[in-house]
């Protein structure tokens, strides 16, 4: 290749302030193979792009180097411009003289020399670029949504409303997630059930949604556009086709003393149960661990009383395979518990709060159940120990959160707001009661949020004490709260009837193993990682997998719903075309050299490397080699660097190109 154009950008003054751009262009023009070189104030602007297109035509350019910003910023822009001028877009290279040069240097002469070096290297590289064609992959226009909380429900409904099939998988017997447990929601105090349950019914009735409750993801195969998901439908012991949801089985079940997990163990439920009256689907499930029939082989009452004969003790787990093209992960969160943690765990419990052994020390979600009209007390605030209405209630924020010594340094984001809400709900129900809140900071960045908090303080008379709590202990029938008020520098002791801890939002237990099945990355706290914190906040680095809700990090309802709709929009973008076009910067294995050690398979972060058998015409196996699935490959080059026999090459980044760049210096 010998007809290369070099375009040096000033980036306003971002580059030209420290780099003599004219000199760089001049030097580039003298390089062998460069047919045209010039500089311009804003190459990415419309006139800048036209300059490039005109130069292609005027000088019959075959390759292009744009010396400007990072390829992450504008590589796509210039590739598009080049393509419209008739140059293969993969013959365009960015020489990054902004982030890698002008922004980090002060001396103009040295920076100019370095910029020239960078351009020279890229000129050598573009000489060895090959024209590439985008890779196309067929798309299965069917989405999987994992998790049936508000985020999963929203994503499923959005995708289904757009006309695509959705498979929604929920681990619990009913969809609804945490939001179904809440009483009223901030900052408007509308009833959670009232806004949630219609959406749950919409999911159940939607012709495009296949709902698998009481089910888990067993295995994930395939890649973007072409996943194969194996779902384990756990044995419900009730035939969903026959059950009418009449509830006789639950009423007659003699085993009624099982702690009701949905009510945070405040109440009890039978062994055959729906988690809550508004459950979707309204089909009970038998909790086999606690069912007398499954424990002793005796009882069988539910089967006898079931009119339609839906109870089936012989049901077994079922594995079904669902082909889908995209996955939305919306598995939500769980709350930190103050109980003692296993030895060696980086997360510590709260011995100073009694490790959860004081009955009148509860967490925020338990308070939600107490305040909920459909909760175990019918919405009356009664403390667990003796059912008395608490007249002095203390809320403690940041329990576990922002506490490095307890193993968690992040902010759980929702607690400031829900604690303010709790003080209001309390005041609305216990008019002569007094609420105290121990807090570090009140973090209220959201629409209407600060006003809501101020209302709790100014109108609902919650007493906010800035300081931490050092110990909680039982004294007769009170819980003594020992804390500090750092704004006046005194120690505070409050004898409370009930203490509510705003415990940290944590990733679901098992989040890591699901991530491993999906091939997505997660952080040190097991929250799932987005591809880019700011610009790709709903996409995973793994193509075709999107995130919604608190599985990515602590989130409130509005944020979860927004992210769910954003994830749905990403899925719909993917489904808008029949075939998926992917950048052809992918790794290729040279079968002839590959020794089949599969070191590349171990290091590939995308799970793109497969084993390929090489056979002769008689079908005898000659050897096994690595094969990089171009539909999955992310083009990171890790395999290329790892391969001991140098038999993997990444298009656009071949060893030959990299050597040529080094030699150009």
């Amino acid at each position, binding site marked *: 290749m010998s007809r290369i154009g070099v375009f040096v950008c000033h980036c306003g003054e971002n580059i030209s302030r420290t780099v003599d751009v004219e000199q760089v262009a001049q030097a580039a023009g003298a390089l062998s193979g460069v047919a045209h070189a010039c500089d311009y104030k804003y190459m990415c602007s419309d006139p800048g792009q036209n300059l490039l297109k005109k130069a292609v035509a005027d000088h019959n350019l075959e390759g292009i180097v744009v010396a400007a910003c990072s390829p992450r910023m504008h590589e796509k822009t210039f590739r598009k411009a080049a393509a419209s001028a008739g140059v293969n877009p993969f013959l365009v290279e960015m020489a990054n003289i902004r982030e890698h040069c002008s922004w980090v240097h002060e001396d103009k002469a040295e920076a100019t020399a370095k910029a020239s070096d960078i351009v020279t290297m890229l000129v050598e590289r573009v000489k060895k670029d090959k024209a590439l064609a985008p890779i196309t992959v067929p798309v299965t226009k069917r989405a999987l949504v994992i998790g049936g909380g508000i985020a999963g429900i929203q994503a499923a409904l959005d995708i289904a409303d757009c006309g695509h099939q959705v498979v929604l998988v929920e681990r619990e017997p009913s969809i609804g997630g945490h939001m179904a447990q809440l009483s009223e929601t901030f900052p408007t105090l509308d009833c959670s059930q009232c806004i949630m349950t219609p959406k749950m019914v919409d999911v159940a009735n939607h012709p495009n949604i296949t709902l698998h409750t009481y089910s888990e993801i067993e295995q994930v195969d395939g890649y973007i556009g072409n996943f194969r998901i194996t779902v384990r439908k756990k044995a419900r012991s009730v035939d969903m086709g026959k059950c009418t949801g009449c509830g006789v089985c639950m009423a007659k079940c003699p085993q009624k003393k099982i702690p009701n997990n949905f009510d945070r163990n405040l109440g009890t439920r039978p062994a055959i149960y729906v988690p809550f009256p508004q459950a979707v689907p309204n089909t009970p499930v038998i909790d086999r661990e606690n069912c007398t029939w499954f424990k002793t082989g005796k009882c069988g009452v539910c089967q006898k009383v079931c009119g339609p004969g839906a109870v089936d003790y012989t049901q077994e787990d079922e594995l079904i395979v669902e082909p889908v093209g995209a996955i939305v992960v919306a598995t939500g969160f769980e709350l930190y518990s103050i109980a*003692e943690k296993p030895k060696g765990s980086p997360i510590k419990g709260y*011995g100073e709060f009694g490790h959860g052994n004081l009955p009148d020390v509860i967490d925020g979600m338990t308070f939600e159940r107490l305040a909920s009209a459909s909760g175990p007390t019918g919405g009356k605030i009664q403390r667990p120990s003796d059912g008395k209405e608490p007249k002095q209630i203390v809320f403690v924020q940041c329990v576990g959160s922002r506490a490095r010594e307890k193993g968690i340094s992040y902010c759980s984001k929702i607690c400031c707001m829900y604690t303010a809400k709790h003080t209001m709900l309390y005041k609305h129900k216990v008019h002569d009661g007094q609420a105290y809140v121990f807090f570090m900071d009140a973090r209220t960045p959201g629409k209407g949020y600060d006003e809501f908090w101020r209302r709790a303080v100014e109108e609902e008379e919650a007493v906010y004490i800035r300081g931490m709590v050092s110990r909680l*202990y039982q004294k007769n029938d009170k819980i003594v709260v020992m804390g500090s008020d750092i704004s006046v520098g005194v120690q505070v002791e409050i004898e409370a009837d009930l203490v509510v801890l705003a415990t940290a939002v944590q990733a679901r237990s098992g989040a890591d193993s699901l991530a491993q099945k999906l091939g997505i990355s997660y952080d040190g706290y097991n929250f799932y990682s987005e591809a880019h914190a700011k610009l790709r906040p709903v996409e995973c680095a793994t193509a075709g997998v999107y995130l919604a809700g608190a599985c990515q990090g602590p989130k409130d309802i509005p944020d979860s719903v927004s992210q769910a709709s954003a994830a749905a929009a990403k899925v719909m973008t993917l489904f808008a075309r029949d075939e998926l076009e992917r950048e052809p910067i992918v790794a290729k294995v040279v079968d002839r050299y590959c020794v089949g050690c599969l070191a590349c398979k171990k290091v590939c972060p995308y799970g793109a490397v497969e084993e390929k058998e090489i056979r002769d015409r008689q079908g005898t196996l000659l050897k096994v080699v690595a094969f990089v699935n171009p539909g999955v490959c992310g083009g990171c080059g890790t395999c290329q660097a790892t391969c001991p026999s140098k038999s993997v090459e990444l298009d656009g980044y071949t060893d030959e190109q990299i050597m040529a760049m080094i030699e150009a210096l």
Partner: protein
Amino acid sequence: MKNKLSYSYYPGCSLHASAREYDESTRGLFKALRIGLVEVPDWLCCGATPAHNVDELLSLSLCAKNLELASGVEGDLAVACAACFSRLKTTQHTLAANDDKRQQVAYALDGPLAIGKSVKHLLEILAKDLGLEQLSAAVQKPLSGLKVACYYGCLLTRPPDVPQLDCTEAPTIMERVIAAAGAETVTWSHRLECCGANFTLSRPGVVLKLSGDILASAKRAGADCLMVACPLCHGNLDIRQQEIEAASGERYAMPVFYMTQLLALAAGVAPGKLGFDSMITNPVPLLKEKHLL
């Protein structure tokens, strides 16, 4: 008994002075349990609270010197006083993590540091090295019917990561040890609250309040006595007890024992050797009532 345990022993200043009964009962107990105990020759003060508040290098150097001296005696280093234990452990922890300070201390001590000695509190030796079963087997006079409030104070388990004795905020090691001697332990709230410590000299009012809260909590829980492992806590709870009673109008009359006094009594050491006569709150009526004397 398979005992061949033997330790070097750092009593610290208090145990040679105001907490003499802690020293005597420790020696008595270890003898009864047939555990060797050899006092480190020529040991120095650990620096206690004053040194580390005034000059960190001094405080680290004093402890490093003691560890160096201890390295000349066989066996892990047994420490009874909670504050000495804390200072020695803190020194090891700080110097392990900080090269600059290591070099400064090495310079101050004029030679390479020898601070690797394993430092163990008596509780650790009894609960882990000897084991609760062995301890139980050595009991001749079980402390049956004696309701003990185990008081840890600030230093035995804190700061997290330094002493590594037991769970920082909900430890059970004292309860386990004294229960092995047949005593009953009470569940109470102020096991880990501060007694007021050195404020006993500068602002005794603070001590009267904090130690008063501790006594009140132990009484509320139905305890007959307190058990401690720290001479300063002992001073505040025992010596100041009458003042606390006068200030609060409450009557406690609650003996404050060192852990080794009770354990040695259970192990059959003669009561006359356990220093009960040097306690301000007279324990004799209680011990007689429980048929332990």
